[in-house]
């Protein structure tokens, strides 16, 4: 299903999605973030600081609550995520690609019900990038494209005063069907303009990872490279890069007690972060990744080598957030290029 939507009709479409909670990027506190749309959606954003991954993988997920009364067996109360259908507008192709990777992780071998319960209720209405969103975009280096519909349910392309709207999945079709008459049919001219816009978008210069196909092997060969520590010398060990990454999915599970006698509390999953020192720390105090260099290597190798070995694709989708938001200039493109350039 492919349609045309006049820009001034966008709000009408949103209004028609009465069964859905609609979120879209809004500018608040000087940053773009996904927020409930309140009826108005304006897709003039550069990419959001936080990717939309939280819709299906929130920073905090309560698995169950527990209670242990003295002399009685423990009582567990499972908690399931509330199921509300959620349409997220303005998702950029890198983040769509991110969703594909997250889906892969949480459904491989074991299906994560908490993730799935949320994910199955989320629809991504993407927006192609006619121009790179920032100076650190490099989606084309990691098998993506600024106009890709990967991971999307609908892909919109800005054609000036109108959007070219294409359904990607059945959910996407349903979303568009709900809009009904707000859409027009695309003319041949529209189709031509779409093609041209996409071609132009692909031709926009981006940052590049050199010889990307050889990267996994070269990284594998560089595990013991002294460069890791050198490149991480400025790293302050915060978690901004991974918390903002559309594909980082590591988590921690803790019991958060609300009472110690009787023992009561919740078992909670929270995002974890390979850049934190205690991420791989053993009880003994031994830490196999004992310095920031090893932690940087983990982040980069996971994206560019291990994920490749496991799933045949780069985990990194080239959104550039980890570069832009790094306060001390740690740059994943630079790191990959530097480390691999010395390997034969």
């Amino acid at each position, binding site marked *: 299903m492919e349609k045309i939507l006049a820009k001034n009709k966008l709000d009408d479409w949103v209004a028609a999605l009465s069964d859905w909670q609609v979120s879209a990027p809004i500018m608040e*506190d*000087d*940053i773009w*973030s996904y927020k409930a749309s309140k009826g108005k959606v304006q897709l003039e954003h550069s990419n959001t*600081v*936080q990717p939309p991954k939280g819709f299906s993988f929130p*920073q*905090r997920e309560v698995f169950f609550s527990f209670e242990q009364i003295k002399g009685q067996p423990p009582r567990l109360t499972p908690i399931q995520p509330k199921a509300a259908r959620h349409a997220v507008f303005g998702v950029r192709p890198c983040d769509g690609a991110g969703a594909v990777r997250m889906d892969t992780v949480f459904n491989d071998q074991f299906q994560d019900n908490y993730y799935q319960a949320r994910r199955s209720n989320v629809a991504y209405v993407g927006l192609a990038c006619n121009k790179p969103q920032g*100076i*650190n975009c490099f989606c084309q280096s990691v098998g993506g494209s600024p106009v890709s519909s990967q991971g999307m349910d609908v892909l919109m392309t800005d054609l000036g005063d109108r959007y070219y709207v294409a359904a990607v999945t059945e959910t996407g079709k349903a979303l568009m069907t709900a809009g009904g008459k707000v859409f027009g049919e695309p003319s041949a001219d529209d189709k031509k303009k779409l093609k041209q816009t996409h071609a132009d978008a692909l031709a926009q210069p981006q940052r590049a990872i050199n010889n990307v196909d050889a990267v996994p092997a070269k990284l594998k060969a560089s595990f013991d490279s002294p460069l890791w520590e050198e490149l991480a*010398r*400025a790293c*302050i*060990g*915060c*978690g*901004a890069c991974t*918390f*903002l990454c559309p594909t980082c999915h590591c988590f*921690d599970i*803790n019991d*958060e007690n609300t009472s110690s006698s009787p023992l009561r509390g919740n078992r*909670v999953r*929270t995002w974890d*972060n390979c850049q*934190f*020192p*205690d*991420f791989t*720390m053993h*009880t*003994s*105090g031994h830490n196999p990744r*004992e*310095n920031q260099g090893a932690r940087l290597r983990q982040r980069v190798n996971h994206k560019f080598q291990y994920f490749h070995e496991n799933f045949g694709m780069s985990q990194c989708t080239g959104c550039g957030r980890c*570069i*832009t*938001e*790094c*306060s*001390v*200039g740690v*740059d994943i*493109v*630079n790191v990959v290029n530097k480390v691999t350039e010395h390997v034969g």
Partner: protein
Amino acid sequence: MINLQDMRDTARNMLAKNEVRGVIGYRRSTNGMLAEPVVITKPEQADELIWDPTCFHNLSLYLVEDRKFLAHTRAKADLPIAIIAKGCDARSTVVLMQENYFERKDVYIIGVSCEGTGVLDERKLVKKGIRATNSAFDGDDFVFTTEQGEQRIPAREVMADRCLECRECFPKEHNIVLGEDKTGRQLDAPFTALKRFEELDPAARWEFWDHQFERCIRCFACRSVCPMCYCDECIVDSTSFPVTGQTTADEKANRVKWIERSATRAENMTYHMTRVLHLAGRCIDCNECERVCPVNIPLRLLNNKMEREAREQFGYEPGASIGGPSLTASFLDTDPGKFIR
């Protein structure tokens, strides 16, 4: 004006003469026009050093990293390490020495005066819609290179808030210093932003902070970038835990959890409030925490509040003296006590 060549020559000479084992400074990053911290150890690297309005980082953090690295590797440094330090960086270096984190002789401070222009607040530039590929100091202006050519902007329009209110842009504590002492050239009165905020009534203030604490994602960038947050284990929500041969199983099992990992408002709030209280009298307003916050939580207001209380109620100026007592470890008979019933 700071002569970059002087800075490079100083670094080069000291490294060549083996007077220091490294120089902590700035170089060009691969992220657009921004500078990034670097530690150079060879004389030939001196030409990598730069000095421009994007040199906003407080490099004293890397003195902390350096000491941690030495402690971790059990290495003994026989030479000092040099640091390029702005007024604020020098003050935080003083606090670190006040707290014995290292000794004065271990550090060679190459002071750089901000000469009253301060450094750039990148967000203000973005707000102005300027995409630049280079930036430079020029008198009271910053000069940016953009696609449209050179763009000259009065520094005060895009300068970091802390620089607007800076009382001491000249690094008093130094071994050598580059640039002129233009102390007193502050553009806004100290605590201007704070005063503006305090005009809000309590309900409005709560609404504001409620919203801010709700947004925190607890990436700990604020803590990680702070030179004063050098604790091996943060008492509120640690992402590290020093284990030694003497650490008992009991200590490992029974750590005080003042907050939980969940990034909910109450937890976030407790984290930030504790941090602010622990920085009282130690924070010297480099405002790195606010700069690095990916979601723009205005942390400076909180730290400023404590700074002003310390100054006005206790006559305490953080980073003023290496030998003086710490704010919360000392008291005066004249400390205010009217609030006590």
